């Protein structure tokens, strides 16, 4: 025996529920896509100078590693340039090892690793990218394994290279090659560097000092000892 009246109400409620869930899903997908592709042309001149926004830590002792969970933001990139966000181990400004995301012309994206050799030359590799709009842990380790820099994405080693120096600094930055480009992040859609840590005889909160080379063009916010957000002041969302 089927109660057609009751079945009708149940069907209607089920239909309403399904429609509501689908609608919420659609809104979520649309807003997610919107956030992920929040490109914004800053309308600034091409000054040909690179800029950085983020935070750094200089403990004046050996730094064995750095990691941060970085939002895979998709910025506006002018022709034939690359905008990036990354973690880095370095010793002065001429020796470094880093990995992170990089977006170049036409929305082409990579996971990149870069390091300097004993002669001071910079080497780089580009691999397939993490999804836009997601968060990924990017990690650079020194001397683990011995004598190597190892580069990780989401705690998985993707590449190891010979380490030609001992790091004593760590940096976590967004970088643009000229003012034409959008610094990762917007006023209402920050680029997040969260759960950031540094290895100094053990893992500890990054607790870095915010550093912005672009003045009022960019913003940053030291949220807590493991998180700093950055954005481009020319962009709202």
């Amino acid at each position, binding site marked *: 025996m089927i109660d057609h009246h009751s079945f009708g109400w149940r069907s209607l409620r089920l239909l309403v529920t399904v429609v509501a869930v689908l609608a919420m899903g659609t809104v979520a997908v649309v807003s997610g896509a919107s956030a992920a592709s929040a490109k914004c042309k800053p309308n600034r001149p091409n000054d040909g100078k*690179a800029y950085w926004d983020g935070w750094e830590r200089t403990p004046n002792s050996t730094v064995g590693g750095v990691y941060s969970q970085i939002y895979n933001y998709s910025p506006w990139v002018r022709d*034939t340039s*690359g905008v990036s966000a990354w973690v880095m181990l370095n010793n002065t400004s001429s020796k470094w090892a880093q990995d992170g995301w990089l977006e170049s012309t036409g929305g082409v994206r990579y996971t990149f690793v870069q390091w300097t050799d004993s002669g001071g030359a910079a080497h780089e590799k580009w691999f397939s990218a993490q999804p836009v709009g997601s968060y990924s842990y990017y990690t650079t380790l020194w001397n683990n394994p011995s004598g190597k820099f190892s580069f990780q994405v989401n705690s998985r080693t993707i590449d190891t290279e010979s380490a030609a120096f001992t790091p004593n600094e760590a940096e976590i930055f967004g970088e643009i090659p000229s003012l034409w480009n959008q610094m990762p992040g917007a006023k209402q859609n920050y680029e997040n560097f969260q759960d950031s840590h540094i290895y100094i005889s053990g893992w500890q909160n990054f607790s870095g000092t915010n550093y912005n080379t672009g003045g009022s063009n960019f913003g940053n916010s030291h949220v807590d000892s493991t998180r700093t957000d950055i954005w481009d002041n020319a962009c709202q969302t």
Partner: protein
Amino acid sequence: MGQRMPNLKISRRLALVTVGAVTALAAFGATFAAAATPSPGPTLSSATGADLVQDGIQLQNPTSTATVSQAAAQQTALQAFLGSSVRETVLANFSDTHHVPAINALAWAVSLTFPSGINPTSEGPPPGHPGLKLSYLVVFIDATTGAFIEATSKG
């Protein structure tokens, strides 16, 4: 005088045998060396073998045939780095043992160049390296699937 003639004959025979043996040995050695020493793999004029080996990358002679054309691979490489142009392309058995896990694939190695002053990568820590110019940029395209494998550069 009479005793000298046989000695001379023996010396001539000995000399002939020696020359023959040396020639045979030399020919055998050359053949053996050619067989034992692998012929050099594909090379790029823009990136030396030493450069690539430093990054864990080796190019060896291809042992199979590409199903993706050279032109198609070049097009994929150019799309990966818009604004660049092709310097040279070789087909090789490509390996990157510094990648985890190691990569082994039949690949097109497409060497690209950028217009002067263009650098599609990070300048390192502040204050950066404005004069940083890539001496090479090589893109590896899977010659079986046409997919981007990785790219490598030095600056």
